[in-house]
């Protein structure tokens, strides 16, 4: 649809965005790659020379590496399972005719807008505190011993907090997807004699599969790098050190920048594996 004139104008208008993003991507990436091959410790005099692959082997070899991978997988997997299962159920519920649908929607979405540091602190202190937390009161009310959430059930605590934050996201997207389902399709399946459960299984769920995949991938990317929730609750203690947090500690707390940068490269590779799948789906939608 374009003429030569508009095409060259287009190129000029894209230049700032492309340049900025290119710089934003390349400069730190190259710096991180460079640092990952150096023995770089700011507290001990800075750059102590070429390190070869040592940072990479040491990062993997450290006793905290595999536990951090496991922790990451448990948190990401747990949150994904919870948000998607409950997200589908909640979306189905919210799609049904009711009074005050708009208000319920708003209530359900609200946690998504709460900043991560606030939700982590509120949950940690006001709900999961073993003496004054609301959950402790609830446990005592039923005659049980309050759970010491942050130290004894640390992973579960973080999964609960993060799930609470992301459930609205999953619900909202799945609800949008359900609402886009052609009503006539459901009526046709009803005419064909499909009972409710079969309709869910054969019509609704396949219709949702694309939205579920998208939720899965987008959440994975964000969940792989959750930070504030851990930072303000356990600070990485009690087995809640994720890969992201481990790298953060290496760089910020122990000031082993070369080592941390090697970890950063691993994190980038991991995120890219997920990203490839997400981009395929998003890309298909462009045509």
């Amino acid at each position, binding site marked *: 649809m374009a003429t030569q004139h508009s095409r060259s104008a287009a190129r000029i208008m894209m230049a700032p965005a492309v340049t900025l993003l290119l710089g934003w991507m390349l400069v730190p990436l190259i*710096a991180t790659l460079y640092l990952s091959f150096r023995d770089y410790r700011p507290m001990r005099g800075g750059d102590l020379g070429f390190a070869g692959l040592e940072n990479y082997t040491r990062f993997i070899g450290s006793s905290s590496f595999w536990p951090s991978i496991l922790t990451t997988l448990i948190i990401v997997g747990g949150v994904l399972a919870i948000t998607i299962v409950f997200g589908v159920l909640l979306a189905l519920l919210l799609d049904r*005719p009711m009074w005050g649908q708009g208000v319920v*929607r708003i209530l359900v979405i*609200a946690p998504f807008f709460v*900043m991560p540091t606030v939700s982590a602190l509120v949950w940690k202190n006001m*709900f999961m505190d073993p003496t004054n937390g609301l959950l402790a009161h609830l446990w005592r009310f039923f005659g049980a011993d309050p759970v010491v959430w942050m130290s004894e059930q640390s992973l579960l605590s973080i999964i609960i907090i993060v799930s609470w934050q992301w459930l609205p996201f999953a619900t*909202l997207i799945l609800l949008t997807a359900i609402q886009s389902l052609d009503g006539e399709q459901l009526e046709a399946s009803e005419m064909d004699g499909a009972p409710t459960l079969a309709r869910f299984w054969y019509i609704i769920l396949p219709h949702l599969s694309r939205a579920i995949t998208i939720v899965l991938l987008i959440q994975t990317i964000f969940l792989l790098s959750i930070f504030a929730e851990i930072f303000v609750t356990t600070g990485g203690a009690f087995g809640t050190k994720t890969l992201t947090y481990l*790298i953060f500690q290496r760089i910020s707390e122990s000031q082993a920048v070369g080592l941390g940068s090697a970890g*950063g490269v691993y994190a980038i590779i991991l995120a890219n594996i997920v990203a490839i799948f997400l981009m395929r789906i998003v890309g298909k939608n462009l045509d």
Partner: protein
Amino acid sequence: MARSVTTQQKAINTALAWAVGLLIFFPILWTILTSFKTEGQAISDPPVFLFFDWTLENYRVVQERSNYTNFLWNSIFISVGSTLLGLLVAIPAAWSMAFTPSKRTKDILMWMLSTKMLPAVGVLYPIYIGAAKMGLLDSRTALVIVIMLINLPIIIWMLYTYFREIPGEILEAARMDGASLKEEIVYILTPMAVPGIASTLLLNIILAWNEAFWTINLTVTKAAPLTAFIASYSSPEGLFYAKLSAASTMAIAPILIMGWFSQKQLVRGLTFGAVK
């Protein structure tokens, strides 16, 4: 689906949905309620729900002790500033990709999206040192730039999906009617794109407001926004439930309200247009 539902069924749906909705909303509600209690009532056993002596004391104390307005101002400055700067860069880019697409447009869009997926922690140190070298550590400028950059792909994508819905024929009609490129943008494109730009603005202010990795890592006190301010409450000596609640309420209230307004655009923005 146009079909009638019995009142009874509707009542069951309503009760169930409201129960679940309130349960999910409860932590926020509880925080807001607690912010109006005294510290004593905040930890009373059994907890009091509504029947306590409502007080604004906590808000006053938080404000006095921590210079809340300073953090608030930083949050506003950083989120609004980064979003406006982002729009400035993104509008022309999205415009040209939507209306003069080339064979590479799709690749460029996908590449832009891929920069969003770079884990922040992977580039923490270079950015940190870069900011320090330029004397921008603990400065709002650094955060405005960094947050603008991390949200730029989302801004471009959102605008792109909105712009693409403006039929090309309308812009061609303007061209036939004698409008120059500038007039085309001023009289036709911008007014038609305002709703899309507004929701992009809103969603990105929310995202920037809640950004908690760079805001914590690149600030100390001077430029610290509310995310960092709240994080400082995690140390035990700062811990008072009622005051924590008051500070939290103040930190989330503005964004909660904005969020409710932007909920319709949220899905599209966060899924890069893949779900509408």
